């Protein structure tokens, strides 16, 4: 006998993206086609072969946090803390709504607090061991955002940090849902990344997938015949998820939607004749949601921008949904790939597409090869009712994660 599982709802969102600090600013920019990609300004990048990034400018997280948090936090942690503040405020979690053990935290991280640790490495080797800060003991490890969000907000339930490059953000949401279903009524979840210091930057270059194009509007063109890699960015999103019962009991002011299904798979080893696992991840997530491909209104694609990977994703989507069987989109061309932040930001975009009955386009991409057989939304946003979405994310070396989100009918 299968137990009817309670719905896990998204009741609060805090988002920071290169084209918008804040959920509504980001969404307006996405619908208006405003990009956050430009020349790197964080440091003098003139000597490097790649110089385009999605940077969060005109927003200083330091202004939104107590000064005592500043010496001990990397920029990615500052973003995460601000996003968590915004998410919890958005959800209007009251001080008496939950006991401290009823509130958990699951975040994803791809690169940790990298700029912070770069500074510490620099101090160690240029000045000596005594120059290393006390905060290095926790400011850069992958769990730092989970720890600091827990500390700042008194969240004493289960806490975890997951690492799977760009797939991790969806894994965090999936594990947060698992945690709610296992009995923790509210979980703060999501992912935020930033590695825009010189060392983090060259490290990203060494991955071999960054676009070397110099025109910001033509650099990151997923599914385009001229795709030549991706542009990296910084930022992400933190979401409040809670059980439907908890949301109803405390009178949550709004519900963005439901995290209805989640699955993750791993590709066969390089050189194996077996197929990659993205399609199976999507199928398993759909099955988890109790839905069929026909029930899905839009796919928010991983959109790697690397031709082979685009082709593999197109194959997975057209195979599962039929040729041009579902609208596909990737608003991430306006922000760059946000690593652990990418999946959560896509989920937020999906949730807003339900609210505003519009699918955002994939800016920049114009010429999709015929044999991809996907209906990529390009040019203008596509209006029309949207009540369910499949969100995909892949992590380097073979991670495939999928989340199904759907609208919750108003009571």
């Amino acid at each position, binding site marked *: 006998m299968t137990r009817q599982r309670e719905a896990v709802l998204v009741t609060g969102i805090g988002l920071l993206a290169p084209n918008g600090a804040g959920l509504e600013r980001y969404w307006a920019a996405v619908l208006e086609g405003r990009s956050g990609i430009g020349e790197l300004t964080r440091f003098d990048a003139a000597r490097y072969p790649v110089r385009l990034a999605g940077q969060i400018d005109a927003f200083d997280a330091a202004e939104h946090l107590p000064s005592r948090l500043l010496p001990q936090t990397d920029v990615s942690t500052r973003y995460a803390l601000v996003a968590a503040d915004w998410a919890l405020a958005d959800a209007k979690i009251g001080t008496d709504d939950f006991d401290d053990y009823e509130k958990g935290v699951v975040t994803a991280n791809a690169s940790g607090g990298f700029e912070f640790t770069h500074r510490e490495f620099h101090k160690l080797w240029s000045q000596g061991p005594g120059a290393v800060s006390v905060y290095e003991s926790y400011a850069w490890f992958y769990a730092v955002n989970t720890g600091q969000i827990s500390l700042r907000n008194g969240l004493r339930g289960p806490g975890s940090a997951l690492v799977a490059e760009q797939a991790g953000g969806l894994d965090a949401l999936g594990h947060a849902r698992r945690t709610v279903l296992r009995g923790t009524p509210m979980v703060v979840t999501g992912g935020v990344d930033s590695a825009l210091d010189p060392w983090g930057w060259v490290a990203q270059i*060494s991955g071999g997938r960054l676009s070397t194009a110099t025109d910001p509007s033509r650099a990151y063109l997923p599914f385009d015949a001229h795709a030549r890699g991706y542009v990296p960015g910084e930022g992400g999103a933190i979401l409040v998820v809670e059980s439907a019962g908890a949301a109803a009991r405390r009178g949550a002011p709004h519900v963005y939607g439901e995290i209805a299904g989640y699955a993750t798979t791993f590709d066969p080893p390089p050189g194996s004749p077996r197929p990659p696992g993205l399609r199976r991840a999507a199928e398993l997530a759909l099955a988890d949601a109790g839905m069929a491909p026909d029930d899905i209104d839009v796919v928010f694609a991983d959109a790697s921008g690397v031709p082979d990977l685009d082709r593999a994703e197109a194959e997975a989507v057209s195979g599962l949904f039929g040729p041009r069987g579902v609208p596909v989109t990737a608003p991430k061309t306006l922000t760059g790939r946000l690593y652990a932040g990418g999946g959560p930001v896509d989920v937020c975009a999906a949730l807003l597409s339900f609210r505003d009955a519009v699918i955002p386009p994939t800016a920049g991409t114009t010429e999709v090869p015929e044999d991809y057989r996907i209906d990529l939304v390009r040019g203008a946003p596509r209006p029309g009712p949207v009540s369910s979405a499949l969100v995909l994310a892949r992590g380097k070396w073979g991670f495939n994660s999928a989340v199904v989100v759907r609208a919750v009918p108003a009571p």
Partner: protein
Amino acid sequence: MTRRVVITGIGVRTPGGDGTKAFWKLLTSGRTATRRLSFFDPSRYRSQVAAEADFDPVHEGLSPLEIRRMDRASQFAVVCARDAISDSGLQFETFDPGRVGVSLGSAVAAATSLEQEYLVLSDSGRNWLVDHASLSPHMFDYLAPSAMPAEVAWTVAAEGPVTMVSNGCTSGIDSVGHACQVIREGSADVMLAGASDTPITPIVVASFDAIKATTARNDDPEHASRPFDRTRNGFVLAEGAAMFVLEDHEHARRRGAHIYAEITGYAARCNAYHMTGLKPDGREMAEAIRVALDESRIDPTDIDYINAHGSGTKQNDRHETAAYKRSLGAHAYRAPVSSIKSMVGHSLGAIGSIEIAACALAIENGVIPPTANLHEADPECDLDYVPRTAREKHLRSVLTVGSGFGGFQSAMVLRQAGGARA
């Protein structure tokens, strides 16, 4: 019917333990594997003691290609995974790869390689604008270490859920707990679970020096890790790894697998108190213990042995002593407690898995490893910490705990296989 999770294969690499047998021999002997730090010149550092594994990747069967591309922590993980796989007797080729997953813990992942690369790219710290011309092609993987769990997945061509759990010093217990949840919910039938960390590199040593968390007992490295002892003064940084084959119990039983132990309960809580400090009352660790016992459907009095976090810092050992009293009541005074960090040091994200291995082997052999170097307990640590000598005892239920920066507090219960559930 809830699925049950059992351990059917173990692979371990620790200081003084280049395999599961050697590891167990070290633990039961009460000898320590802590020594003067030798991986680099420690003379400018406050703590000059470490627990280093004598690990030869060539001797361990890694190919030149693997050695070149894999950070040391990945090498440890893969070697341990291969041992666990062979130990389990599972014929992975006959398996649906989609039903096999990985859950790997690590706190600092590729820190060793990061530092090596940094010295080249920055010209030993001279240049903030690092040089991209001498970039290693693996630098991306040191920045974003998703390659680590991938390498473990490739040992069996796993295509199920693959994750890296990175919760600081509780990574090793949390990664195994995570794997149990994945098996229980039916997303996999077999998980390669465990953890690896190889953090003995200048930046990590310096960062613990800065907060004075590591011992500065440099004149006596063999006795420097002294959990619960009155004269303890910090932990000994270590490296190591442990990997398990975790299986759905029914599946293991059907194939007649050798079962070390069943994992019956796991819980994690955060203390939301301080990123590095601990409250003396141990409240949140006690709650994690309570929930793990609850999930196992056992009482505190059923606990036959507690494998402690026992890092050997002043604050930790008092914190967890308080947590035991709070969660187990009077039984805290009866259950033997020991810390193997006294012998193999504190390998950050890896140690939680290494301690689970110790618990499984303790159950299997009916022997409790001692707390080495314990001569005079801290008056505030007044439990039975099994000082210096291993103790024979039939063990049905064992509790292991972990505590880490960021406020993580975790607890897990292992029970003898075939033990009746209440």
